C-alpha cells in the first residue's frame, strides 16, 4: 500500500542521508521524495516521501524510527 510520510527536520546536510539509511535498512523503495527549506521557520526543512509498504504496521514502526533521529523535529504518516 502507498503511504505518504512527511517530516519536518533541522536543515542540515546529514539529515537526508540518515533517513535514506533507514529506508535502505527497511528495504523500502521510495516512489517519490522531495525536500524543501521551509520559508516559515528558519533552519527547518520539510521532507515528504511516498513509499510502498506491505502492511500498515510497517509504516508505524518506520515513523517511530524516523522520529528517533535527533535531526527530525516531527514526522507523521499523512496518508
Amino acid at each position, binding site marked *: 500500500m502507498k503511504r505518504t510520510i512527511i517530516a519536518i527536520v533541522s536543515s542540515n546536510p*546529514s539529515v537526508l*542521508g540518515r533517513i535514506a*539509511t533507514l529506508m535502505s535498512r527497511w528495504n523500502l523503495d521510495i516512489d517519490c521524495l522531495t525536500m524543501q527549506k521551509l520559508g516559515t521557520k528558519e533552519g527547518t526543512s520539510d521532507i515528504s516521501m511516498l513509499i510502498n509498504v506491505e502492511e500498515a504496521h510497517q509504516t*508505524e514502526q518506520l515513523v*517511530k524510527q524516523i522520529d528517533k533521529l*535527533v535531526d527530525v523535529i516531527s514526522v507523521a504518516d499523512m496518508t
Partner: protein
Amino acid sequence: MTLTTKTEDEPKFTWGTGADVLVQSILREGTEVIFGYPGGAVLPIYDALYRKKVRHVLARHEQGAIHAAEGYSRVSGKPGVVIATSGPGATNIVTGLMDACIDSLPIVVFTGQVARPVINTDAFQEADVIGITAPATKHNFQVRDLRDLSRIVKEAFYIATSGRPGPVLVDLPKDVSAEQIEWRSEKVEIHLPGYHVPGPANEKQIHRLAGAIERARRPVLLAGAGVLHAKACDRLRLFAQNHQLPVVNTLLGLGSFPTSHPLFLGMGGMHGTYAANMALSECDLLINIGSRFDDRLTCNLSKFATEAEIAHVDIDPAEIGKNVPTKYPVMGDAGVVLEQLERTTGSCKERQEWLRHLHTYAQQHPLHYENRPEDSTIPPQYVIERIRHYAGSDAIVTTDVGQHQMWTAQHYQFEHPYHWVSSGGLGTMGFGFPAAIGAQIAEPEKTVVAIVGDGGFQMTLEELAVVTELHLPIKIIILNNNALGMVRQWQEAFYEKRYAHSIPSFQPDFVRLAESYGVTGWRITERDQIDSVLESAVKNPDPVLIDCRVKQMENVFPMVAPGKGLKEMIGV
C-alpha cells in the same frame, strides 16, 4: 529542547585552541577519565590534555578503549568518554559503538578528522566517520565551526545520557582543534528541537495497566536493563513484593533483582531457567519493564507468551510494539513509571497458587550440570560457582561472549545492581577483558573478575599492558576449553558434529603470555587446584590471570533451539 548551564571556574578571558575548548567542555561535564589512543588528527587534543593534566587511560587498541569506557559506564552509571584519531582510529571503535548502541550505554566519542580544506580529497587517514557511524550511534556530529564546539559537546553528553542512553560521536577536524580562539566564559545553551525525553507516563496508560495487574491471575514481571539505567531496582523490588509479582530477568537485566529473592525465577530466554521460561509461556499478563523483547529472550515469536496480555514499559517509544503486539503500552522512565504504578495499583487477585506452581517448576527443574569428583576434567560451571564462593556477591563480574558468558549468567547468582557487565545485544567477543579495566577504574576498591573464553580473550588481550601500567588488580579467569565453545556447541547440535574451525590447533601459553606483560599467571589443570588458586587470586592485591582448563565438550543447557518456543527447552 533548550537547556542552560552556568559555567564556573573557567578562565575569564584568554586565548586557547579549539582543543582547549574541547577539553574544558569535556571536564565541564564532570568527566573524570578519558579512554583513548593518539594519532595525527588528534595531536592538538593530546597537547591540550597534556596542558590540563587530565586523567587519560592509554589503551593499546581503540576497541580496547571503547569497551573499557563501556565497562566504566555500566558500573558507574556515568558516561564513558573516548578519544580516537581519524581514519583507522575511528574505524577501530565502530564495534564498540554498535555494542553501546544496542546495549544502550552512554558513551561520548571524540574522533579526529582531517583538516577541513582536505575533507573529501581521500587525504591521509581520512574516513567518512559520520557516514560510517551514523547507524551505530544515537547521534553524531561533525564540528565545522569552532564556535559551535562547546555547544556540540554539551549536546553530545546530553543526548548520550538522557532518555534511552546511547553512544554519541563528535568528529573534529584537525584544523578546528588547532585553531586559536579567544576563550570566553559564557553560557552554553543546547538547542535540540528534534530531541525529546519522555516525562512521566500518561496517567491513562498507568490506570489501564494497574487495572490489568489487579485482575491478573498469572502475572509475571520481565525486568531488563532499562530498570538499571533508571536506577529503579529498589522500586522494582518493592513493587514486585507489594503485588506478589514473580520476576524474570533478561541477560542484561541481571542484578536488577536479587537472585536469592523468593519471587525471582532467574533469567529467561534461550539459556534461561525452566521456571522463567514456563512463567513467560503460561502467564496471563506479561509486564515488560525496560527490555526490548530481543529474539534471544523471546525465541520463536509466534510461540511467545501466547496466553498473555502484553504490557511494555519503555522510555523509547520505538521499542513498544516493535517485536510483540502490546496491549498496555506505557512510555516513560522505568523508575517514574514504577512509582506511578505503585500509587495507582490497588489490591490484587490472590496469587498463591500461581506462585506455588512456579516454585514447583523451579524446584523440579533447577539449573544442573554433571559434576563427578572422579572425573579428571573440570566442569566450567563448577569453576564459576567456586569463583562466586571466593569473590562473593560484592565483586563486579565481566564476561566475554560465548559459553562461559551463559554459564556465568546462569550460575553466578547476582544480588546487586551494576555488578554484572556483559555484551548482550551485539554479543561482541573481545568485550569482557577491556570492560573489566573500565569497571576497575570506576570501582578501584572492588574485586573485579573478568571471566573470559580462550577465544575472545585473544581478541583484545593487548590491554594486559594497561593492567600492569595502572596496576589494576583485576582477576582474569580464562575458562579454557581450547575451543570456540559456543560455535562448537551449535555445530555439535545442528551440524552433526562437523567442527569447522571451532577447535583451533594452536593456542598461546596464557601463563607465559601474562607474565610477559608483567601479570602473574597461574594455571589450573586439576580439580584440587581450583580452591587454592581462586582463593589466593582473590586475596592477591595484584592483577592475576588464571588459565583454567575445563571440559572441552561441555554444553550450555537448558537450551531453546532456534525456531523453537520457550516451552520447548532441551536439557532441562
